[in-house]
């Protein structure tokens, strides 16, 4: 299990990176954390002619907690974002989900942007991006001019392991909108072993009004749909306090919307069942974390 040969590029700046990527086009693959890419290379399941190592591009190593969003750069490691108290305060779902991404040692090297670019439907961060309504920023250069486009999860994720990233483009950063205090979030998943890809995972966002009644709710899914799916549960949950919410209806709605596939770890029926169970758990937990929740307020 040794990687095949490739030509190695280690640009020092973003401009240089985009130049190299533009020049190499389809033959190049970007190396960020490498925690998904290098196993594929070691197993010789991928053999790009060129690897563009962006780990030396310091301008991509950012976690920027802004007034509207938390923006993370292409080589911001999962671990760094997970530990960032500012990011966790602005957008608690980030830390809640990152704790479930593989193991701590993998998170020390792996990057959130890389995980999004990999577009694995079992990747927690895909659902986080989707359910929060965040965007990815794709940058490319042509004739010395840099072009950027921001895409939502719905536009970015195309199919399992397939995104709208074009040859020559770099996933430069991802932006996760701030979560208002009235909104609680949670990530619930079931994995065979701690740290494994989840058999099913649900990210939930529940907003309570000042009276403690559900104003809106939605969940994002992993491992039960080809790309992360956002199911709006406002219609079945809104207008009552969480304790009286019709979670069974929420469960049914999510189960009706997911389209799991069977693999060697779980049948489609079981994954669908988990989507329901975890929706209940995540919604309940998220609601309890809203600043307007009657008890256990703000716990993250």
């Amino acid at each position: 299990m040794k990687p095949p040969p490739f030509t190695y590029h280690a640009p020092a700046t973003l401009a240089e990176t985009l130049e190299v990527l533009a020049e190499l086009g389809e033959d190049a693959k970007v190396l960020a954390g490498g925690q998904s890419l290098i196993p594929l290379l070691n197993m010789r399941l991928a053999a790009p002619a060129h690897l563009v190592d962006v780990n030396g591009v310091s301008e991509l190593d950012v976690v920027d907690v802004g007034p509207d969003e938390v923006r993370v750069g292409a080589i911001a490691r999962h671990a760094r974002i997970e530990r960032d108290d500012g990011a966790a305060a602005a957008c608690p779902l980030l830390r809640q989900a990152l704790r479930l991404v593989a193991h701590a040692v993998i998170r020390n090297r792996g990057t959130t942007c890389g995980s999004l670019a990999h577009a694995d439907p079992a990747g927690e961060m895909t659902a986080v991006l989707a359910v929060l309504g965040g965007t990815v920023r794709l940058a490319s250069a042509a004739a010395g001019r840099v072009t950027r486009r921001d895409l939502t999860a719905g536009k970015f994720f195309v199919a399992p392991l397939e995104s709208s990233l074009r040859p020559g483009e770099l996933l430069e950063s991802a932006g996760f909108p701030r979560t208002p205090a009235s909104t609680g979030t949670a990530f619930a998943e079931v994995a065979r072993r701690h740290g494994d890809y989840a058999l099913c995972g649900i990210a939930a966002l529940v907003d309570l009004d000042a009276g403690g009644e559900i104003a809106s709710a939605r969940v994002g899914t992993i491992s039960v749909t080809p790309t992360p799916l956002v199911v709006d549960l406002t219609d079945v949950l809104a207008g009552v306090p969480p304790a009286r919410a019709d979670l069974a209806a929420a469960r049914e709605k999510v189960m009706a919307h997911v389209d799991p596939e069977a693999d060697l770890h779980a049948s489609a029926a079981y994954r669908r069942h988990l989507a329901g169970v975890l929706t209940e758990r995540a919604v309940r937990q998220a609601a309890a974390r809203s600043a307007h929740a009657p008890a256990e307020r703000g716990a993250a």
Partner: protein
Amino acid sequence: MSAEHLHDLTLTVNGVPHPVSVPARRLLSDALRHDIGLTGTHVGCEHGVCGCCTVLLDGQPVRSCLMFAVSARGHEITTVEGLAGPGGELNAVQRAFQECHGLQCGFCTPGFLMTVTALLAENPSPTEDEVVEGISGNLCRCTGYQNIVASVHRAAALMTDGAGEPRP
């Protein structure tokens, strides 16, 4: 297939600079083991799951099988060979593993030692759950982990007693 381009670089391992000349695809684990000759870092799966190859990169544990040697340029690498004192005396973590029978065949052990060293540097008195979580990215086929968990607590106690600092 013609000869591959070799990259000349210096890897700093346990504080010692090692000039190597490697192809870009050379995994850091292989560079440490076969180019530099530090064979204490073991390779158990080469897809990042087992943790045997864990080393510290600027103090943070990472999988050396999921990194290219060329990417390690300019970073401080610490391997199991860097844990004991200059006379070979075991550090607190190593001593704890011996006292608690935290190893059997010894193959996974270097990866555990590196992970635990970083864990205790960040959290000197972890709870039971934190210890289990902290070592949960490393596989051991021999011990059933119980004595490894005990070793981590013992190491924490040894370090708190001032009986030994984790190196580095």
